[in-house]
C-alpha cells in the first residue's frame, strides 16, 4: 500500500460521480443530552464534558449497563422534530412557499404499527412540506439521507431538501443493546482507547437545510459524500476497513480534495473493541500517511450513540467545529491501543479548518462519509 492511501490515488481508485451544482448547509438545529441548541452541544464537545449519567427515564435494574446520554425528563419525539425543523428552516429564512416546494427526508427508527413513511408524512404535513420519505438504516440513516439529498441538489433536481432525524433513548432499544452485550458497563464511551468497553446510547433530534449554493454565505459547504457496503457480515465490520475506505475515497473524490486538505475527522468511533480497530484500519487504507496526522475524535464519547439520528448530530457538530475553529475532544481516553494509532484530540485545541470529514458505520456493513467545507 502506497503512502497515499486509496483516497490519495483517486480518480484511479474512485468512480464516484456527482452533479455540478455546489451544495451548501444553510440552517441547522439540534437537541441532545445537553438540551436544545448547537452551542450547548458544541461547548461540551470542545471542553470534553460528557453527557452520560444513570438512566432515570425507564427502569434499568435488570440491565448490565446503567448509563446513557439523555436529556432530562421525557421529551416527545414528534414535538422535538417539529421544533428542530422549524428552527433550521427559520435560520435558512424559508418562506411558506419554500417549504411547500421542498421535501423532508426523515431518519428514524422504524414504526411497526403506523409505518415509518406515515410518521414522516405526518411530520412533513405539520411543517408544511411538499412530501417526505423515511430512512431507517440504523446508524447511517441520517447520513444516507444527507447524501441522497446532496446528490439530488447537485444534479439540479431539487433546489433544497430538509433533512431531519430523531432518536430518544427508550427502554426497548436499551434492553436490546444490553442483551447483545454492546453497552459499556463502566458508564463511559472510550473510542480508540485501551480498555474500551462498548457503546452507550444518546438522545438526538436535529434538522438541517441543504440547498443549492447561491451568493449568500452559507453555514458550510457539503463538499462531498460517499457510501459503500462491506459485503461481510450481518453486524460486524470488515476488520481491514476497506469498505469504509472506499466511502472516504468517494467523498474526497467528489469534493476534489486531497487527504492532506482534511483538517479534522469526526470518526464513527462507537467505542467497541472490534469496530474502532476496523475503523482505524479503514482510515489508514483511505488516507495513507495522513491518517496518523489528521486530528480525529469520536464525539460519541461526549453525546453517545444516537442511532438513526447520530449521523446528523455528528454532522451538525462537525459544522460547528469548522465554524468555531475548535476541535471536539475524544473523551474517555485511558491509554493508547496498538490497533488505533491515530492523532486523537485529547486536549482542547484550536484549528483553522478548511475541510472536515464525518464518518458513520452501521450494521450490515453500511459505511458513509460526508465531507464538509468552510463557507
Amino acid at each position, binding site marked *: 500500500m502506497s503512502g497515499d492511501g*486509496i483516497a490519495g490515488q483517486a480518480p*484511479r481508485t*474512485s*468512480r*464516484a*460521480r*456527482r452533479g455540478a451544482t455546489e451544495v451548501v448547509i444553510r440552517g441547522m438545529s439540534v437537541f441532545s443530552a445537553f438540551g436544545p441548541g448547537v452551542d450547548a452541544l458544541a461547548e461540551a464537545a470542545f471542553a470534553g464534558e460528557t453527557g452520560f449519567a444513570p438512566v432515570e*427515564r425507564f427502569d434499568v435494574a*435488570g440491565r448490565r449497563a446503567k448509563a446513557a446520554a439523555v436529556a432530562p425528563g421525557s421529551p*416527545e*419525539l*414528534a*414535538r422535538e422534530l417539529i421544533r428542530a425543523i422549524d428552527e433550521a428552516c427559520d435560520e435558512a429564512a424559508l418562506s411558506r412557499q419554500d417549504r411547500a416546494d421542498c421535501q423532508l427526508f426523515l431518519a428514524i427508527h*422504524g*414504526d*411497526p*404499527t*403506523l*409505518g*415509518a413513511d*406515515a410518521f414522516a*408524512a*405526518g411530520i*412533513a*404535513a*405539520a411543517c408544511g412540506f411538499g*412530501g417526505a420519505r*423515511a*430512512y*431507517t*438504516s440504523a446508524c447511517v440513516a441520517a447520513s444516507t439521507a444527507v447524501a*441522497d439529498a446532496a446528490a*439530488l441538489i447537485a*444534479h439540479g433536481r431539487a433546489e433544497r431538501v430538509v433533512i431531519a432525524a430523531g432518536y*430518544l433513548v*427508550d427502554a*426497548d*432499544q436499551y*434492553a*436490546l443493546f444490553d*442483551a*447483545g452485550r*454492546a453497552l459499556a458497563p463502566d458508564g463511559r464511551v472510550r473510542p480508540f482507547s485501551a480498555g474500551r468497553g462498548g457503546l452507550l446510547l444518546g438522545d438526538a433530534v436535529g434538522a438541517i437545510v441543504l440547498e443549492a449554493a447561491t451568493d449568500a454565505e452559507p453555514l458550510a459547504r457539503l463538499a462531498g459524500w460517499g*457510501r*459503500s*457496503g*462491506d*459485503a*461481510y*457480515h*450481518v*453486524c460486524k465490520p470488515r476488520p481491514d476497513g476497506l*469498505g469504509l475506505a*472506499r466511502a472516504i475515497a*468517494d467523498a474526497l473524490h467528489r469534493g476534489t480534495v486531497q487527504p492532506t486538505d482534511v483538517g479534522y475527522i469526526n470518526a464513527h468511533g462507537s467505542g467497541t473493541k472490534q469496530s474502532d480497530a476496523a475503523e482505524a484500519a479503514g482510515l489508514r487504507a483511505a488516507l495513507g500517511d495522513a491518517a496518523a496526522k489528521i486530528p480525529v475524535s469520536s464525539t460519541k464519547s461526549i453525546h453517545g450513540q444516537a442511532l438513526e439520528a447520530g449521523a446528523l448530530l455528528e454532522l451538525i457538530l462537525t459544522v460547528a467545529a469548522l465554524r468555531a475553529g475548535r476541535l471536539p475532544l475524544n473523551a474517555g481516553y485511558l491509554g493508547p491501543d496498538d490497533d488505533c494509532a491515530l492523532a486523537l484530540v485529547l486536549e482542547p485545541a484550536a484549528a483553522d479548518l478548511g475541510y472536515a470529514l464525518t464518518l458513520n458505520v*452501521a*450494521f*450490515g*456493513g*453500511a459505511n458513509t462519509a460526508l465531507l464538509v467545507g468552510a463557507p
Partner: protein
Amino acid sequence: MSQTTETNAGGLEQKATPQNLPSDLTAAPGRAITAAVPQQLDRSAAADSAAAEPQADRASSLPGAQVAEPQAAHPAAAPKPQHDHPTAEAAPAPAAIITAATPLQAAALGLSIVAEARWPESAHDHTPPNLPGFILSSFSPIAAETAARCLSRRPEAARPSATAIVIATARGDRQSAAHVAQTVAASGILGPLLFFQSVPNAVAGHIAARWNLTGPVVCLADPVSALETAALLIEDGDADQAILLHIEQGDRDQAHAVLLQPVDARPVDAAQPPPGAHP
C-alpha cells in the same frame, strides 16, 4: 393495478399530492400511492383524526405521536389485527400484492428490471427457509429468500461489479418489535440474537455478504423513494446495479425483489476500477 403516480417532465416520479388523491387517502400527503391500498386504509383511520386537529398543537395531534416513556409506547408497539379498525372493514380489501417497482416506474428513471422474485410465489411458500442467526420472526428469512431467488435469476451477461441493496419497508420486522416490547414490559429476558435484527440493515448485511453485494446499503420506508435512491446510486457511480427489496409483514407476509440496471448498461470496462472493488 392502476398506478396513481405520474412521471413529470424531468422523468421523475411525481408523488401524489393532496389535490390529486381520492379523499379517503389524503391522510398522508406527499406519500406516493402504490398498489398496497389496504395498508393505507388501515393508517387512514388514525391519520384522518390527526389531520382534523387544530394547528396549535401539531405534535400531539400526529398519528402515533411517540413519547420516550415506555409505558405509553408499549400499547402502540404491538401490531393490531385489521379487525380493530372499523373504517378498514367498511371498504372491501382486495388481495393486494406489494410491488417494489414496475417496469414502467423503472424505465421512467432509466432503469430496467433484469430479474425479480416474490414471496409468496406459490401455495408452497408458507414458511421461509430458516435463516441462521435470525430468530422468532419471518421478516428476515423472507427477505433473504426473496433476495436469493432474485439474485439467482440474474442473467449471466449482466453480472456487475458492485450491486447496491435497497430495502423498502414501512413497518419493518413487526414480529421482533412486538416480542421485544412485550418482553421488556413484562421484565423478561431478551435473547441476544434479537439485538441486530431489530433494524433492516442486518438482513441486508446477510444478503450482501452471501451474494457479494459491495454497493451501498440503504433502508427506506416506501418503494417509490427507494427506487429513486437506487437510480441515483447507479447514476452517480456508487453501484452498477441495485436490488430493491420491498417487504411488509401483515396478515400475509409479502416481499417483492427486483434487480435493476441502467437501460443502456454496457459490459463492465476492465480498464476502469469497478465501483465497490476492494483495492
